[in-house]
């Protein structure tokens, strides 16, 4: 079997250094990027370097990070903020937790550089409340960095000041949506705001705010130290650098891997994940989280990068890869996904609040053998209208995997309806 090597940029220190030791981080070139920007680069240079690197956000949407920073840098305001979005909650995703627990200083350093580049002097790390160890490690990192003069007033005698505080979530998937997250920091219900205006010019407390995902920020220090050209050599056109993925489901090896963009999905699943468990056949892969996409075995050779995946209506999403073997029922998977969204819809807009509930009820009915053939049409129409009319990303992406399953595994749905039979005997069809 072909051996695929990992390529570690984001996870360069994870598992190698003691995450609670700032000295070990510094010994591995930690904070040298901060030192470099402060002593050798102007804020404009930093924005330019990040833009040139073509780094795209790693939270799912893939927006160019340098452009985000530029909007905030150019915004005229007495106060600006940097937010690290560490509200990881997409089912099947734990990459950010790995970075926070394994290399917390890399995130702080990324935030400091973002602050320097955009003129912000205050940062917040919004971590979901369930991630107790991540919170503890990041707090220790903040305390140690302050003690070393790397955070706080007049950093390294440069006149640049930057402070970071942790904000703990309280259990809401929707707070991963950037404007809902800001509402939550402001002490409100985690409901999304209307966009535009967008956060880079009107964010936290109405001030210009850069909000980046954990993995995005951890990419910043190596880009600064090694340069944008080095970064652009990794990956492919339109998707530079690496991507961290989580492997799980019916796979022989579960865990976290980092690959250069452009690596075929089949290499990740079959080589790094050591193939489908117990020698069974692959049925499908849920890629990029339950709001992501459903990949069939025929599509498995697709290179993992933004452009190649877009051609099959997919994307790297949250970085989650859930493998389903031949014994899994697609209706059962869809039902579990619908159940999740019904629970997490914040209730602000009707398409999502009612749509997620209706979707679950229809799928539940089908899984029990009580479905009607017109239910398929209803699900498709409902899903499409949610994608068009829901207020935020939650409702717009909730139907993704379900709709793709209707298209790619239609016979299996129809067996449940017409023959009142689950072909793989998972659903309790009456």
């Amino acid at each position, binding site marked *: 079997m072909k051996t695929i090597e990992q390529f570690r940029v984001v996870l360069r220190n994870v598992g190698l250094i003691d995450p609670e030791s700032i000295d070990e981080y510094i010994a591995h070139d930690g904070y040298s990027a901060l030192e470099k920007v402060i002593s050798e680069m102007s804020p404009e240079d930093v924005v330019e370097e990040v833009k040139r690197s073509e780094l795209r956000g790693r939270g799912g949407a893939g927006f160019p990070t340098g452009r985000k920073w530029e909007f905030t840098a150019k915004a005229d305001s007495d106060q600006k903020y940097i937010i690290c979005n560490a509200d*990881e909650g997409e089912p099947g995703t734990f990459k950010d937790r790995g970075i926070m627990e394994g290399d917390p200083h890399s995130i702080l350093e990324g935030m400091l550089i973002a602050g320097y580049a955009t003129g912000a002097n205050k940062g917040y790390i919004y971590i979901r409340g369930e991630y107790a160890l991540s919170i503890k490690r990041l707090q220790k990192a903040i305390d140690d960095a302050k003690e070393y003069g790397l955070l706080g007033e007049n950093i390294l005698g440069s006149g640049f000041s930057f402070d970071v505080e942790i904000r703990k979530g309280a259990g809401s998937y929707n707070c991963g949506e950037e404007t809902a997250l800001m509402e939550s920091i402001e002490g409100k219900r985690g409901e999304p705001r209307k966009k535009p205006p967008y956060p880079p010019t009107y964010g936290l407390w109405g001030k210009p705010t850069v909000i980046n995902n954990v993995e995005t920020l951890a990419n910043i220090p190596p880009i600064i130290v090694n340069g944008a050209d080095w970064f652009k050599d990794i990956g492919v056109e339109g998707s530079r650098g690496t991507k961290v993925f989580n492997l799980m489901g019916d796979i022989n090896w579960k865990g976290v891997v980092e690959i250069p963009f452009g690596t075929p999905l089949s290499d990740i699943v079959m080589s790094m994940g050591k193939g489908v468990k117990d020698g069974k056949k692959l049925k499908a892969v849920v890629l990029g989280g339950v709001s992501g996409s459903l990949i069939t075995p025929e599509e498995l050779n697709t290179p993992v990068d933004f452009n190649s995946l877009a051609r099959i209506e997919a994307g790297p999403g949250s970085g989650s890869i859930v493998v389903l073997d031949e014994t899994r029922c697609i209706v059962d998977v869809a039902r579990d996904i619908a159940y999740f969204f019904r629970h997490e819809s914040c209730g602000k807009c009707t398409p999502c609040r009612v749509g997620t509930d209706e979707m679950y009820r229809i799928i539940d009915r089908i899984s029990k053998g009580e479905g009607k053939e017109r239910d398929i049409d209803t699900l498709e129409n409902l899903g499409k209208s949610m994608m068009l009319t829901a207020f935020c990303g939650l409702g717009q992406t909730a139907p993704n995997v379900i709709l793709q399953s209707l298209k790619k595994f239609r016979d299996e749905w129809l067996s449940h309806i017409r023959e009142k039979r689950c072909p793989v005997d998972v659903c309790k069809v009456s």
Partner: protein
Amino acid sequence: MKESGFIEELHEIQKREEKNYLMKKDIVEAARHHQITPARAYGVATFYTMFSVQPRGRHIIRVCRNLSCHLAGAEKIVEKLKETLGVDFGQTTEDGEFTLEESSCLGMCSLSPAMMIDDVPYGNLTPEKIPEILEEVRRREK
């Protein structure tokens, strides 16, 4: 507008309370602190799943049923928890020790099925392990 987090304060209040919940008078008090209306404060307290406005047990069990855990047999774990504790979701055991809650993904997918009890994660669960874990937590101080 106060910059210190209102949600942080609710976390603190709930942590102090032995029954793991937010009392009405405390929510109103915190609202005054932050210069927001009691109605808005109550809206916040009831929005987030980690907060409760009803008394709960000394220990909160959060069990995940999302995709990775579902595939790994989360239903069996849920059944065993319900059977061992004699409660359904959202209910507290008679001795006031445990409240059973369902949670969205806990980010422990490579160790699925998984749950958390208070701040402690438990992964690679089997129904057989459940009684043992509950016993151990019972003996632990909160």
